[in-house]
């Protein structure tokens, strides 16, 4: 479990995070959403320790990460896997070597066992056939899957994904979302995803934090989001006519008798 307690971060005079608190539970896909410049990337970097916080606490299973020295942070970091927006694969290594790298650096066991683990992870992301290829030789979606394989190879307790669907076609995006959700449930990982993708929000969001101008504007699940009356959230999530209609359909799905739609229309009529 990851707990944020009133975290704050500024760059010069500009306050980027204005006291954000939330709890991210294991076995759930936790999403951080918000428009560009809302502070979600800074928030994620503060959680994983790539940036220090000015105030507040980040707790990993009740342990204060912000108060730890580098040696203690290293121990926590070995339990973290991260998928970067651009995949961040090592160019000079093959797919197999990329996945093997964390195991070689920190893993225990024989070379045979390590190779078996790499094969297992590549199998899990359906990339066994690309093991000997270099990152430059594979597609964007495949790179993301290699990134996921590398992130899970050490059996992390926490998985962070920075915009996992950026630059991918809708079909590949769905595949990545499905994979992350399955892994989260399979290994009871605390997964935190920073995303703009509405499919991810609606399909995978067990717990969603909506950031607006450095503050937590709304919090809930993908089931709550369709009934939210928060105007800023609705403007962000259901920005187009198509998405507004999709929202209504989801509401109908959730209330199969259809009464909700009538009530919704009634409410809109009253306004």
């Amino acid at each position: 479990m990851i707990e944020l307690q009133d975290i704050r971060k500024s760059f010069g005079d500009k306050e980027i995070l204005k006291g954000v608190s939330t709890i991210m539970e294991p076995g759930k896909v936790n999403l951080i959403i918000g428009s560009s410049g809302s502070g979600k990337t800074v928030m994620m970097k503060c959680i994983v320790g790539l940036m220090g916080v000015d105030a507040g606490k980040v707790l990993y299973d009740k342990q204060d990460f912000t108060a730890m020295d580098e040696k203690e942070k290293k121990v926590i970091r070995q339990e973290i896997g991260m998928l970067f927006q651009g995949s961040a694969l090592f160019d000079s290594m093959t797919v197999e070597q990329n996945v093997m790298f964390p195991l070689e650096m920190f893993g225990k066991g024989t070379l045979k066992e390590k190779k078996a683990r790499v094969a297992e992870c590549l199998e899990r992301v359906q990339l066994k056939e690309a093991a000997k290829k270099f990152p430059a030789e594979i597609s964007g979606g495949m790179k993301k899957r290699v990134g996921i394989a590398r992130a899970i190879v050490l059996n992390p307790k926490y998985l962070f994904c920075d915009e996992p669907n950026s630059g991918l076609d809708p079909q590949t995006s769905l595949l990545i979302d499905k994979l992350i959700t399955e892994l989260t449930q399979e290994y009871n990982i605390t997964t935190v995803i920073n995303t703009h993708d509405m499919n991810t929000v609606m399909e995978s969001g067990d717990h969603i934090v909506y950031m607006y101008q450095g503050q937590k504007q709304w919090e809930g699940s993908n089931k709550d989001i369709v009934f939210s009356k928060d105007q800023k959230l609705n403007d962000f999530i259901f920005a187009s006519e198509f998405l507004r209609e999709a929202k209504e359909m989801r509401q109908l799905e959730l209330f199969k008798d259809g009464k909700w739609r009538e009530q919704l229309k009634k409410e809109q009529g009253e306004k």
Partner: protein
Amino acid sequence: MEFKFFYHFGNFLLMLKGMFSRPENMKMYWKQFMQQCVDIGVGSFGIVFIISLFMGGVTTLQTAYQLVSPIIPKSTIAQVVRDTIILEFAPTLTCIVLAGVIGSKIASELGNMRISEQIDALEIMGINTKGYLILPKILAAVLMIPVLVAIAGFLGIWGGKEAGVLSGIISSEQFMQGLRQEFKAYNVFFAMAKSYTFGFIIASVSAYYGYNVTGGALEIGKASTTAVVVSCVLILFMDYALTAILL
């Protein structure tokens, strides 16, 4: 301008301090060090070979052109070529060329790793990136550049001899006799002292600029150019300082 200098100098010292921590896995650090030795040593051998041969040849021809007096023995040409190459050309000229070859490679490699978040990925894994990425490069440069300078010295003198013999300026025997006249081993020590210093400058300065790149592809190019320029200026400055101190 001064403040900018102190800012970079302070950050540079912090980078050097940050390199020293207990390696997460000694075997991986060793592998990285050996890889860098191959990249820096073997990877730069071709250019060192070419510039050394021509450097020696040109030195012989130009020395012969200037020593026209009949009272100066021909073997003096070899003596002048030997000392010029050992004292200056092999360490300084080679290192200036290596600053371009190795320095730009280190700066652009680290810059690209920074921009594409590969350094962040290593940090997240709990690896001391300064220790894993920069320290092996500096150690490899400090080890391999003196080796390249020594090779450049031998090749330069050999190139000088061949150029002299082929152009009919000096015979092979006269050249070999000149090489042995008044040879000072201290000059070799001086050349090695310079090459260790220059090796450290090339790797550390380039790593500093590459590691701290912010922005995009354009900034990688800028960092690479800055790394080479600053390395060359520092090499020339330290060349003067070491000459004033050691000779």
